[in-house]
């Protein structure tokens, strides 16, 4: 029988129909409701003409309905393209061009005009609908036959920090394998209630969803903007025992502490390494918090490395060691393996389930080869096999768990009037891990205030690319080849005048 992620997930939920299984800020449904909603939606998809191996755009920002529609699409062998509601027109147009998708679910008047020509499918989601018997409902689900079942489970997109987002094909095999392997390491309990506060289109969110349901626990997701107080409120209101978020969220959790979050017993940080200071803060503010740090990528179907709680103090700053089925090597520019502790390019091999970006042979040539998948991060492996990240090989870094391209910032600065030369890099920041800094050489008489520069940049780059600091320099020192001479720049910085 071919892999079908819905069959695996729903097949693990065939008992306890009244047990809560899925929720958001406003509603929570039980297993009987999940099964009935998936059945109704799968039938609706079929009636609307959605066929196996066809793409369908699935809009996020719609709470529980999104997850039932995702499972229903998988039941009939359709391939959801999971995207955010505020997708740019340019990105939407590129999706249409690369996939020829013709149907969409979850669109409204705020959706991009590029999707106006797609056939709108009806969402049948009804939180009050419940299946009478889980086994009967499961048997009646219109699972696609094996001969029509595609390997691909859908498309998600990279952050697109250095250009248009790249399409990452998810396969049922990779999703299933990753969820099962990760689940063994994370050890969620059936009585757990897990909350994520990350966009649903992220592989991290999808992975949490699968692992949580396969563990028999209940999954809650919220995509709304939250301050710490809001996060505390939702964690307590929903009686959440497990929380998955970015390193930035972990800082929120540490600030709140056990006294304000008495039900929280488990937390998982993903997106970047967790700074030792935050680990220590969490240890101080919680007596028995089980804290996991994971390292994952959309290309690998979820997580491929995890730092278990028992190693947090000895290996603070590490992202752990590979989960079953994956191997990580660090290599020099010539492809030879690095020595222990030597920084190199990170390659992932093993049961990847990733054959390349969707219709992007140029990108695939750069990242896939005999040594595995070159994931763009740099790091080293210590004597015990633990992986430590030390940055990116392409001027990309993480700000609060989200990728930022210093090159994109430099290019945007160079496009502004009055700037003779500009360069962006990153620096450590107590709040956000790393933040961008802009170094600017002005044309005479054109110097601008930092707020005015930021206002112009906002028109060109995402919010998380706005520099935290602007530094005026007489010149940006460059080598003969035009690259920034970082050593000379460091010398100049000592005498610089900070605009802020």
């Amino acid at each position, binding site marked *: 029988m071919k892999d079908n992620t819905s069959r695996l997930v729903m097949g693990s939920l065939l008992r306890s129909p009244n047990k809560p299984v899925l929720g958001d800020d406003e509603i929570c449904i039980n297993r009987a409701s999940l099964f009935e909603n998936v059945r109704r939606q799968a039938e609706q998809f079929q009636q609307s003409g959605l066929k196996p191996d066809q793409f369908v755009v699935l809009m996020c920002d719609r709470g529980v309905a999104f997850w039932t529609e995702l499972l229903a699409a998988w039941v009939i062998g359709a391939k959801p393209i999971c995207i955010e509601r505020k997708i740019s027109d340019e990105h939407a147009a590129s999706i249409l061009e690369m996939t020829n998708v013709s149907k969409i679910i979850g669109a409204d008047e705020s959706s991009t005009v590029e999707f106006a020509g797609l056939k709108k499918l009806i969402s049948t989601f009804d939180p009050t609908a419940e299946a009478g018997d889980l086994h009967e409902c499961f048997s009646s689900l219109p699972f696609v036959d094996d001969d029509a079942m595609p390997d691909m489970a859908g498309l998600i997109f990279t952050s697109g920090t250095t250009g248009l987002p790249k399409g990452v094909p998810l396969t049922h095999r990779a999703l299933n394998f990753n969820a099962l392997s990760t689940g063994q390491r994370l050890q969620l309990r059936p009585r757990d209630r897990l909350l994520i506060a990350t966009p649903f289109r992220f592989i991290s969110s999808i992975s949490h969803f699968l692992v949580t349901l396969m563990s028999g626990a209940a999954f809650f997701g919220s995509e709304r903007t939250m301050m710490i*107080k*809001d996060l505390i409120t939702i964690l307590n209101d929903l009686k959440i025992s497990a929380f998955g978020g970015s390193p930035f969220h972990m800082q929120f959790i540490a600030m709140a502490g056990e006294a304000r979050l008495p039900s929280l017993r488990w937390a998982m940080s993903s997106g970047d390494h967790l700074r030792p200071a935050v680990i220590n803060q969490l240890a101080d503010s919680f007596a028995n918090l089980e804290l996991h740090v994971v390292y994952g990528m959309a290309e690998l179907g979820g997580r491929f490395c995890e730092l278990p709680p028992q190693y947090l103090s000895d290996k603070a700053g590490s992202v752990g060691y590979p989960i079953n089925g994956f191997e990580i090597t660090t290599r020099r520019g010539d492809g030879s393996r690095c020595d222990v502790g030597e920084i190199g390019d990170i390659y992932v091999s093993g049961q990847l389930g990733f054959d390349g970006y969707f219709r992007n042979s140029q990108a695939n040539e750069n990242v896939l080869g005999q040594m595995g998948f070159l994931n763009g991060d740099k790091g080293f492996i210590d004597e015990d096999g633990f992986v430590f990240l030390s940055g990116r090989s392409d001027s990309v870094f993480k700000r609060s768990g989200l990728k930022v391209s210093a090159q994109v910032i430099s290019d945007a600065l160079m496009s502004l009037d009055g700037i003779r030369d500009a360069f962006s890099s990153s620096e450590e920041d107590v709040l956000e891990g790393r933040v961008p800094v802009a170094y600017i050489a002005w044309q005479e008489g054109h110097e601008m205030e930092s*707020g005015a520069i930021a206002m*112009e940049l906002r028109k060109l780059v995402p919010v998380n690319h*706005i520099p935290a600091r602007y530094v005026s320099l007489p010149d940006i020192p460059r080598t003969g080849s035009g690259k920034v001479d970082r050593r000379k720049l460091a010398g100049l910085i000592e005498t610089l005048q900070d605009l802020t």
Partner: protein
Amino acid sequence: MTVEENIRSILSAEFGLDAENIVADAPIFSAGLLDSLNSLRLLMQLEGHFGLSISPLDVSLDDVDSIAKIVETIERLKN
């Protein structure tokens, strides 16, 4: 400068928002002009400008989601 003018100045200088043209009641965070990653930095700026001690644990999104609401929150904390 009034409290509102100070807040508009912070939003312009620190976050690059075209704050002079933002309607006082218009949402800032829930409209996507700022995101939760900016929240702690905003509170730090407000603390510094107004000489207040603001615990992030006491401020919800609703307290800072528009210029008018930030003014209300600052006035409340001052008192």
